[in-house]
């Protein structure tokens, strides 16, 4: 029985919803018992945490339980002891009004920087993280750029000839809602809410 199958059995036993799509096994963990389940996966032999991805589902067409999701990528590392190469993607939904979740750095030290990255770019607070500081964006930036309501191209630009690029209009052109400044209607975006 591979660890992947054991993870599925574990999910069924604890009545967790799981989905196997594009060969990624997503297991949805409840926010309150995230740490306990992650500890169980670690005990199951998933010795390697490869990635922590934060997603903001604000503009996603299909309804999701909460605005934010954090997807972990756990591997039973092949080539080391009895690692069989199983890969699972536990995910946890995090509400907008209380964006806090437990840190897993004490289980997998490799989660340190990836969690800091999610904190920096999406503003999710990892409770129990030993060193939760901004990592990529400048110190003076008080925003989380990967949130969907953080605009792109926000710096107003004044050109020498007096031409002035208004970010709002520029963005509208990029997102295909109207022609914007460039006169080009960009790619159509399904599920655009604004």
């Amino acid at each position, binding site marked *: 029985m591979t660890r992947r199958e054991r993870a599925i059995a574990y999910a069924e036993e604890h009545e967790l919803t799981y989905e196997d*799509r*594009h*060969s*990624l096994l*997503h297991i949805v963990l409840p926010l309150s018992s995230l740490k306990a389940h992650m500890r169980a996966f670690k005990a199951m032999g998933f*010795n*390697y*945490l*490869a*990635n922590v*991805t*934060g*997603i*903001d589902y604000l*503009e*996603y*067409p*299909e309804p999701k339980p909460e605005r934010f999701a954090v*997807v972990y*990528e756990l591997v039973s*590392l*092949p*080539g*080391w002891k009895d690692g069989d*190469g199983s*890969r699972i*993607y536990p995910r946890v939904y995090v509400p907008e009004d209380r964006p806090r979740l437990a840190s897993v750095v004490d289980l*997998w*030290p*490799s989660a*340190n*920087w*990836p969690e800091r*990255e999610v904190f920096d*770019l999406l503003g999710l607070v990892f409770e129990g993280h030993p060193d939760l500081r*901004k*990592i*990529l*964006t*400048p110190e003076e930036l008080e925003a989380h*750029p*990967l949130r969907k309501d*953080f605009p*792109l191209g926000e710096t107003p630009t004044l050109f020498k000839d007096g031409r002035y690029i208004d970010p709002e209009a520029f963005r509208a052109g*990029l*997102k*295909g809602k109207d022609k914007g400044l460039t006169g080009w209607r*960009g*790619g*159509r*975006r*399904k*599920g655009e809410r604004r």
Partner: protein
Amino acid sequence: MNPEAKELRTEEMVLNVGPQHPSTHGVLRLLVTLAGEEVLEVVPHVGYLHTGFEKTMEHRTYHQNITYTPRMDYLHSFAHDLAYALSVEKLLGAEVPPRAQVIRVILNELSRIASHLVFVGTGLLDLGALTPFFYAFRERETVLDLFEWVTGQRFHHNYIRIGGLKEDLPEEFVPELKKFLDTFDHRVDDYQGLFVGSPIFEARARGVGVIPPEVAIAYGLTGGSLRASGVNYDVRKAYPYSGYDTYDFEVPLGTNGDTWDRMVIRLLEMRESARIIRQALERLEPGPIRDPNPHFSFPPKELLATSMEALIFHFKLATEGFEVPPGEAYVPTESARGELGYYVVSDGGSMPYRVKVRAPSFVNLQSLPVAAKGHQFADLVAILASLDPVMGDVDR
């Protein structure tokens, strides 16, 4: 400790290294706490090259994004193109024809060789050996010329398309590549002769910055740095993509996990890459280079003058792009630095909803404080070089 020795204790000092320092391989700042020459603590500060690629990619079509991917890891840039394309192809269900797969493997391995050559050259430069740098960059120049021949660019190739490749190889490419391969193994012997076995290199690298396998796994190391610790994890073997499982190659492993192993393992990997390219050249059969599905592959150029339908598809692809079914995909690949993958979330539109890059340098750099603790300050530079971070890949 007797009272006299206590008086002689060195006062701790915090030294700022970088951000602009030639041995930080880009723009990396390290706050190093020193007691005399001994490193007590290293705190890396990254983000100086953060350009928000992930945010930008949410606002560009799937094909436009191929312009951004190689700009993250500018040394092994082809791996980023490939990893991105593989994830999107998985969402689309695109089938890459065999010839395109083989060309992808050839170019990916060539790019890996170019990246390892920079590693060997600059890594030894950090140890004070100037000569290998010139030798390594001579070969790298040849590889970059080959890339220029195929893709028109030396670094930022923009050659991969979703479902295949931009165009076929030029006629002269294969003979030139064979010429390069004929001399390459001999050249690797030369590099090996330049530093392996040299007493100075032995003294600087043996037993320096040892990362035991358990620690390497815990801190998320991948790639050559992990294999130097003796863990046999190569994504090309463990999760084959682009037909890597059909090629016959070895995965070189280290035993001690020190700087010496990490340096030498890259040399051996270059030989294996050359071996893969030789096998791939034998399989290079004529055939299509793109998935024929007109909904996401550009029609052949010559059809545009004669077929109205091709022209319409071309226009639609160039202006609004193609729509990708909703879902999330991730395909791990092996870059010169470790496991690289793109976590692509699609909402069914023509632009990705979210792109997250699992950048190997970013995760690997976490183990620098662990490896450097307790060593001399000069060794810190050697350890950093042996971990082979590319700051564009770290900061994205």
